[in-house]
């Protein structure tokens, strides 16, 4: 028994050596064959790593902008199209809520002297918004409670607006006309508030004015969109329920008047989407692996035919069918594995470059590497099986006669 086990190891070692010799002996053919597997694995790893890099970056920016926040948007009913400042005060009074920021959008024509710009995004916010984001104001002052309470015509403007209307001029104290109403510029702010990807989704306004003033311009007492900031360490699901309960009362328990969205749930949806995306891409890429496997099978069948005499001779010298089969299986396995490992290297390189180009974080996805290596091993064994079996079944007499 010990002899048999030792014999098996001796034989396996020899098979590895002989297989490497054969692969080296047909360098160009072997390389072309393993190229299929290599391309497949490269594609799988590059796609998975890039998608996970992108989704990692998205998730980071979502949690940085969305942590501890609920966003509420209201469609309302016939009687009530939004919440009043008094309603907002009620929500602010909830235990889990730290503060509320209304957001009232105006699409305005903005002018100064001869310079006119239409379709500028103007948003009414409250003082709490500026308290939350103390780094927002680059120059001048923020809007404060006095502005809110008195509906002042003060505004803070983005860098873009400074470049458009005040090129080479200090904007502070200057007048800007929003929908024909004169506003005094009191500050300049950094428009890119939540990171590149986040602003893509939230859309940053160009001019911020007191929300009370915005309501006056809109001639409305109601607010249709606001953000609820939660106390630190609050469970967003629970807080969301509390806000919903409060608002249900405001809308007389009528359904579909508003939606409360926790950013965490958007994040989850995003993650699911990205997961689906990466498995879809991996599925497409694995077609390349199957094609590569067929290439290996083709080469192994050719090899078996070419080496008929060698197989016959080895059988005559005492190789049992199983040993011949193992020899050819090892050869296709090695061929596929070499392709797979080269593919892993190329895939990681490619995804690193892609992540740099897309400016997302590069994540070394060990799952993708394991998938690539495992897949190529499996391809080698599965597609090598039939040729190896064919070799093992060759009749030594017929094989030697062909010489």
């Amino acid at each position: 028994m010990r002899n048999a086990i030792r014999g098996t190891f001796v034989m396996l070692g020899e098979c590895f050596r002989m297989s490497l010799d054969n692969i080296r002996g047909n360098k160009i053919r072997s390389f072309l064959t393993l190229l299929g597997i290599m391309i497949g694995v490269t594609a799988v790893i590059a796609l998975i790593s890039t998608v996970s890099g992108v989704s990692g970056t998205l998730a980071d920016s979502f949690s940085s902008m969305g942590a501890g926040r609920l966003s509420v948007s209201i469609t309302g009913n016939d009687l009530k199209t939004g919440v009043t400042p008094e309603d907002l005060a009620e929500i602010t009074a909830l235990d889990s809520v730290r503060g509320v920021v209304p957001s009232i959008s105006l699409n305005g024509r903005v002018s100064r002297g001869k310079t006119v710009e239409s379709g500028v995004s103007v948003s009414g916010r409250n003082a709490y918004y500026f308290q939350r984001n103390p780094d927002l104001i680059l120059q001048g002052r923020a809007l404060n409670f006095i502005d809110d309470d008195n509906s002042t015509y003060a505004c803070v403007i983005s860098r873009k607006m400074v470049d458009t209307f005040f090129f080479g001029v200090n904007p502070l104290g200057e007048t800007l006309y929003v929908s024909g109403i004169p506003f005094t510029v009191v500050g300049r702010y950094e428009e890119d508030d939540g990171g590149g990807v986040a602003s893509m989704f939230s859309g940053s306004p160009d001019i911020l004015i007191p929300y009370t003033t915005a309501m006056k311009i809109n001639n409305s007492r109601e607010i249709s969109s606001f953000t609820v900031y939660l106390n630190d360490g609050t469970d967003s699901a629970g807080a969301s329920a509390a806000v919903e309960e409060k608002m249900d009362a405001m809308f007389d328990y009528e359904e579909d008047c508003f939606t409360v969205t926790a950013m965490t749930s958007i994040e989850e949806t995003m993650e699911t989407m990205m997961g689906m995306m990466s498995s879809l891409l991996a599925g497409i890429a694995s077609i390349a692996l199957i094609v590569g496997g067929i290439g290996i099978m083709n080469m192994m069948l050719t090899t078996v035919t070419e080496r008929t005499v060698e197989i016959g001779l080895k059988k005559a010298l005492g190789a049992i069918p199983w040993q011949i089969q193992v020899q050819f299986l090892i050869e296709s396995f090695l061929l596929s594995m070499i392709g797979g490992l080269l593919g892993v290297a190329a895939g990681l390189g490619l995804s690193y470059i892609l992540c740099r180009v897309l400016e997302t974080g590069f994540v070394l996805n060990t799952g993708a590497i394991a998938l690539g290596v495992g897949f190529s091993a499996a391809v080698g064994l599965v597609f090598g099986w039939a040729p190896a079996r064919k070799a093992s079944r060759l009749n030594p007499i017929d094989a030697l006669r062909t010489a």
Partner: protein
Amino acid sequence: MQTNTFFEMTGIHKDYIMGGEPVHVLKNICLSIREGEYLSVLGPSGSGKSTLMNLIGCLDTPTAGEYILHGRKVDEMDETELARLRNREIGFIFQNSQLLNRLTARKNVELPLIYAGILPKERRRRAEAMLERVGLKDRMDHLPTQLSGGQQQRVAIARAMVGNPSLLLADEPTGALDQKTGAQIMELFGELNRENRTVIMITHDMKIAAHAKRVIRIIDGEILEGGGADDA
């Protein structure tokens, strides 16, 4: 000289199906060989001598009849058992030496030892000793293509002998060689036989057959003379 029976064939038939028709290649072969015999099987091409060699060499099993080698019934063995038997008991020498051109002379000689499960160091030692024996000590690391026909056949003999088999089975061993080289090979066979090894040689050349101590003739699948266990 020992007089134990080495193998015994009784009533061996071998049929092949060719184009749907069965062809009787061997008919009622009875052959008995004692240990240490030097036998040649002489016959023209198509006589069935190669088929007989395949049967003796356990490369094939008979359609009917009984073949007992070293007390074991070969006709009932499966492929794996046959392979093991070939590996241990039989050293093959083929007409055109059949060396693997990608392997050096030594690696070629090591081949049967790989399937016997011998460790690399021991394989190397045995292969080198055997190559030295056939006079190729300084050609061990040459590839077959770098050797002459006679030298290639010596490598093949070394390969056949390295596993220390009890039977040396040669199919037209001098067929591809010139007369002088052929004579050298015959001398080597004689030497191996004097060490009490059974040697069976298949040939169509009467002169080569004459080197053996016993000659059997085979024509149309039947043994014409020398099949019985008569005294050699």
